[in-house]
């Protein structure tokens, strides 16, 4: 499917090559710990999130959602609702014939309102608009919908069973995609291996739960549609809305204001984008929709939801000779283009940091009567890292080897980088996996911990101790364009415009659309350096508005720094070249002799001959004072197309205690060493790692979206869905190990998804290690106390039984 012609870098080892910076004297801002430019507004209640946007005359949209997982709609009575005070209208799918569908795989597009049949609990059936949010909710509650229930197919087993009715209209089966990714199944290699094991992994369904739920406001002014929406990628939403409404793109404006977290789920396209736009057009007033958390937990796309069947062939030393990966991806009731692509990314990364003789892979994407699945922090790569890191520990356990030794024996070596995996175009950039492991071990007294764990096993008065490792590699820096096109984006590049004002201050607009990552600060750091030391406080970074920002793609796939960073650098370089030229002209010196010290230009070896940045900047706007032939102004726009994906990696360790009586896990230590290449800002880098780890640790111990046998979600509020609180997450120790990538000029690999990718298996490996003497080989996430207690008890009973026979 993704047969991507990616370019290999010309040669390895030219790491982090940067353009020449003549005569720059200031200390580098890249790499400096800098507090964020974003914070003062957010800390004083002056942020502007979508529900804070209050346009005159705004009306509120509310949904009537399906209470059934699968049912035929037999009647809809909205008479009472339509007559309630403040109600401006009530519409069902039938009332909105001709409305465009949400984007998906061609032929499987999702209608905005359920068309005669509902396919998951929470699917919108009827939409109500009223003058305030309370009245809209009242009216939605007064709509009476009758249903004839259909069999609910809520598990992949049910959906794939013989005779199961297809859920998605127009499909012949619930297996909506069935894809072998290799020519054979590696049976010969597996059969020839000295040892062979199998493992089934369930990577459970998760909810992204950004603390700001989904929402949008649509308004029309003249012929221009404006949608304010809490999204990660305003330009792609604009492109889609323009097609759906038959508008030119210049009359379709999408604004992502402050966005309260996204984690991948706000990169999907939601029915309310179309419905608020259409109903705003019909009612000639702004329409706002803000989902409640209970709606968010059934409406916003979920993530993960893979079952993987693994067959592993290995030798006596634990070297991996062959691996077969068969993935079943639950895609929910309406296949999302990202959701169906997730297993491809999992397969690409299924070899992890290791050289494996042969990997055979296939996947099936299966529709079920559940909330659609799409990206969630890591999107396909955490599922890969989890599987291969569990495989390594399983092999170590089977052979009685130390999992650290098994890792070392299988690593791709630093001198082999860039390393072409068996997957076309998937080429790992510069990394040092053994070095990362060494760095990790330098922070751990591993031998001491192992001795302690052994002692604890024989001391029933103390909790069991386990040590788990996760040495991972994932993908960052999405594009390049040939790959990113296949996820529905027009390209995989990113853009930046740097404009220096006549007073020497700087406004930068970028095509990424951050939602907590700190781009305003990081890009200002990059620009400050590239502009020769313009102070951070003299730089403003804008983003998220398709009408004022040049073309852009958005923020996802750990692409902000590795893809947009070089665009910022290139465009800043362009402005700096102009500054130097103007300064040289003003000082009647050669460009090569111009030195810049922040906001002062001087001539090398000519004391007193200097001109301020503001004077140079002002001159740029006075054509009669410019060098012959130079254009007016100081504005440069650049696009940057990455040559390839980048491959952030790391080595993490988790030390846990397991309570023998209750099965409760306590994380005693969590140590992370990450290689994201160039670190722009250690403060925000730490925030990315720790935040991702919290999600990874929560996947291991707490979180799961659960449906009952009838397809009712039983985790549809924050009472039931276990987002961790402060007491649930340990203090973490984070370190960096910098191997710059040669795949982009900044040398940065991206970091946003590393924690979520690394965390789960570190915790699971630690808990399985703590219980391995009982014969426990595997545990499904989330490892609740009850699940662990059950496993411990079953294992102990088996031991006791063996002792008596």
């Amino acid at each position, binding site marked *: 499917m993704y047969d991507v012609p990616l370019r290999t870098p010309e040669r390895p080892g030219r790491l982090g090559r940067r353009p020449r910076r003549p005569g720059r004297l200031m200390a580098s801002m890249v790499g400096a710990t800098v507090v964020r430019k974003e914070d003062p507004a957010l800390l*004083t209640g002056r942020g502007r999130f979508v529900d804070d946007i209050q346009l005159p005359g705004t009306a509120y949209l509310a949904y009537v959602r399906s209470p059934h997982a699968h049912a035929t709609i037999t009647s809809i009575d909205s008479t009472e609702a339509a007559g309630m005070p403040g109600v401006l209208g009530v519409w069902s799918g039938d009332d909105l014939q001709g409305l465009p569908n949400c984007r998906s795989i061609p032929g499987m597009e999702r209608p905005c309102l359920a068309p005669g049949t509902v396919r998951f609990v929470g699917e919108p059936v009827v939409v109500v608009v009223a003058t305030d949010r309370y009245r809209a909710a009242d009216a939605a509650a007064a709509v009476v919908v009758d249903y004839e229930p259909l069999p609910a197919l809520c598990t992949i087993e049910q959906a794939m069973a013989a005779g199961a009715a297809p859920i998605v209209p127009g499909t012949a089966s619930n297996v909506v995609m069935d894809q072998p990714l290799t020519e054979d199944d590696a049976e010969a290699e597996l059969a020839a291996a000295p040892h062979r094991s199998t493992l089934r992994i369930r990577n459970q369904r998760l909810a992204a739960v950004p603390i700001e739920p989904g929402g949008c406001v649509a308004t029309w002014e003249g012929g221009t549609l404006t949608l304010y929406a809490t999204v990660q990628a305003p330009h792609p939403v604009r492109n889609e809305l323009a097609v759906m409404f038959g508008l030119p793109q210049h009359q379709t404006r999408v604004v992502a204001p402050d966005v309260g977290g996204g984690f991948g789920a706000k990169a999907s396209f939601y029915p309310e984008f179309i419905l608020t736009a259409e109903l705003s057009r019909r009612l000639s007033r702004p329409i706002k929709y803000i989902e409640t958390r209970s709606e968010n937990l059934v409406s916003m796309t979920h993530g993960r939801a893979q079952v993987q069947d693994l067959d592993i062939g290995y030798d006596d030393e634990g070297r991996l000779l062959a691996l077969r990966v068969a993935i079943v991806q639950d895609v929910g009731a309406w296949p999302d283009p990202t959701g169906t692509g997730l297993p491809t990314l999992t397969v690409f990364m299924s070899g992890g940091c290791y050289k494996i003789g042969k990997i055979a892979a296939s996947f099936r994407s299966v529709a079920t009567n559940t909330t659609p699945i799409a990206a969630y922090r890591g999107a396909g790569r955490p599922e890969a890292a989890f599987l291969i890191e569990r495989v390594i520990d399983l092999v170590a356990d089977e052979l009685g080897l130390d999992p650290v030794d098994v890792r070392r024996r299988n690593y791709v070596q630093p001198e082999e980088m860039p390393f072409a995996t068996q997957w076309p175009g998937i080429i790992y950039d510069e990394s040092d996996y053994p070095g990362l492991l060494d760095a990790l071990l330098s922070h751990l007294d591993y031998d001491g911990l192992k001795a302690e764990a052994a002692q604890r096993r024989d001391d029933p008065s103390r909790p069991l101790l386990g040590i788990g490792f996760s040495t991972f590699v994932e993908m960052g820096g999405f594009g390049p364009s040939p790959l990113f096109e296949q996820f529905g984006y027009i390209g995989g590049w990113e853009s930046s415009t740097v404009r220096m004002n006549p007073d020497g201050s700087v406004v930068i607009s970028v095509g990424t659309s951050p939602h907590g990552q700190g781009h305003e600060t990081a890009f200002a750091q990059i620009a400050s350096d590239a502009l020769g030391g313009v102070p951070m406080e003299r730089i403003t970074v804008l983003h998220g508005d398709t009408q004022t920002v040049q073309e852009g793609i958005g923020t996802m796939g750990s692409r902000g720094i590795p893809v947009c960073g070089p665009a910022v650098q290139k465009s800043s370089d362009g402005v700096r070249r102009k500054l130097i030229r103007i300064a040289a002209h003003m000082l009647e010196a050669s460009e090569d002799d111009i030195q810049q010290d922040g906001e002062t230009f001087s001539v090398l070896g000519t004391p007193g001959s200097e001109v301020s940045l503001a004077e140079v900047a002002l001159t740029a706007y006075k054509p009669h004072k410019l060098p012959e032939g130079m254009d007016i102004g100081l504005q440069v726009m650049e696009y940057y197309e990455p040559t390839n994906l980048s491959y952030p990696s790391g080595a993490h360790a988790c030390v846990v205690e397991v309570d023998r009586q209750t099965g409760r896990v306590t994380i005693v230590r969590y140590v992370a060493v990450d290689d994201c290449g160039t670190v722009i800002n250690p403060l925000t880098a730490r925030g990315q790692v*720790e935040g991702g780890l*919290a999600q990874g640790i929560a996947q291991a111990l707490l979180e799961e979206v659960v449906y009952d046998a009838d397809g009712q979600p039983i985790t549809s509020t924050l009472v039931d869905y276990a987002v961790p609180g402060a007491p649930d997450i340990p203090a973490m120790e984070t370190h960096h190990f910098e191997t710059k990538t040669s795949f982009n000029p900044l040398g940065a690999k991206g970091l946003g998804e590393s924690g979520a990718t690394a965390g789960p298996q570190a915790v699971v490996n630690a808990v399985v290690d703590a219980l391995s003497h009982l014969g426990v080989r595997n545990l499904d996430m989330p490892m609740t106390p009850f699940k662990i207690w059950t496993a411990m008890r079953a294992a102990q009973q088996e031991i006791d039984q063996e002792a008596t026979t």
Partner: protein
Amino acid sequence: MRHDVTLRVNGVQTDDTVESRQLLVHYLRDTLGLTGTHVGCDSSNCGACTVLLDGLAVKSCTVFTAAADGTDVLTVEGLASDGEMSPVQEGFRQCHGLQCGYCTPGMLMSATGLLLDVPEPDSDEIRTGLEGNLCRCTGYQMIVESVSWAVEHGGVGAAARSHADRAAAAGLR
């Protein structure tokens, strides 16, 4: 049914007529335009809507405006004094205690409420004290450090202190 209410919000007296069922968070956001207080759930779990009400941190999504009649409310907009962020706000900035910023107003108010009750909490007490506030971005450790920073740099700050003193003088704290 409608009710006449009088509140003191960030030091300013407000008089309004509100519906019985209106939540305080909607009064603050929609009527007063104080949009710094956020809504993140519908089950009182997330804490994004936390404000100080008569000196106590409360979730303004679980208080009716009518029930708040006569109270003194401090929101995130009122934490700074004389244009100077409070030590808690500054601590979050110095220690990167926020990323997307959506949970942040509630975190700041809960942290301020905690420091009013326990002026020098250790990190476990901070974690327990902020248990009712969810953050999906930071992983909490940097929030814990932010609150510790505030403890070392003057505590709750002048605005929250005088808010709490008023509540104490009225016998409410």
